[in-house]
């Protein structure tokens, strides 16, 4: 069995499990990013979230981010798991783990991964408030693709 380094899952994510996928003898530094459901966004109280994904493409795009990182930081090893479905406040939506021999790269590559996820991975978030609900990214003030297409390389 090979370990899946890039996954979309429907059940709770274990930070330890994703981080362990990248721990190895050659790498002294591991950064793990955990994205959790925040209660307040710009003063508005979120009750819960629902994530939807175009799963097949989302996995492909996560793999692509992994390849982009390999090109920029050749010593990096990356694992990303994103959860979909309904999530409660402070539950984990995404875990990104990156190991590198030296720590500067582990931070930089990890931050690159979350920025790219927010640009190109087809996953959508619906916020559910007391007063209603809405798919995020649907708002006019958000124009994440100024070029008409998600950027395929780092801006």
């Amino acid at each position, binding site marked *: 069995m090979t370990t899946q380094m890039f996954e979309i899952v429907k059940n709770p994510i274990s930070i330890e499990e994703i981080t362990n996928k990248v721990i190895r003898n050659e790498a002294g530094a591991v950064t793990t990013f955990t*994205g959790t459901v925040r209660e307040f966004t710009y003063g508005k109280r979120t009750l819960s979230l629902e*994530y*939807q*994904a*175009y799963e*097949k*493409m*989302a996995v*492909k795009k996560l793999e692509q981010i992994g390849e982009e990182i390999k090109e920029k930081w050749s010593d990096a090893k990356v694992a990303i798991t*994103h959860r979909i479905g309904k999530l409660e406040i402070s539950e984990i*939506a*995404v875990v990104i783990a990156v190991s590198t021999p030296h720590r500067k790269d582990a931070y930089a590559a990890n931050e690159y991964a*979350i920025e790219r*996820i*927010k*640009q*190109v*991975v*087809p*996953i*959508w*978030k*619906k916020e559910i408030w007391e007063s209603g609900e*809405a*798919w*995020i*990214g*649907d708002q006019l003030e*958000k*124009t*994440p*693709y100024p070029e*008409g*297409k*998600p950027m*395929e390389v780092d801006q």
Partner: protein
Amino acid sequence: MIKVLLFAHLQEKVGQESISIERIETTVKDIRDYILSAYDIGNLENVMIAVNEEYALDDDMVKAGDVVALIPPVSGG
């Protein structure tokens, strides 16, 4: 036949998870125009189109059997 997948608010607006379009060969732009004229889907200004799980441009060709998807601005992470 070309299958077009819908997600997020587009799925809710149209009330179905996908649309089938009868075409042998066409362009991304034609699919976009067809959907805008045939469905009450609002505007598709910020909506990208993916063909077989890759982002595509308006001029790109689409053939019967391809899987197309409308990708509104993503909000994962």
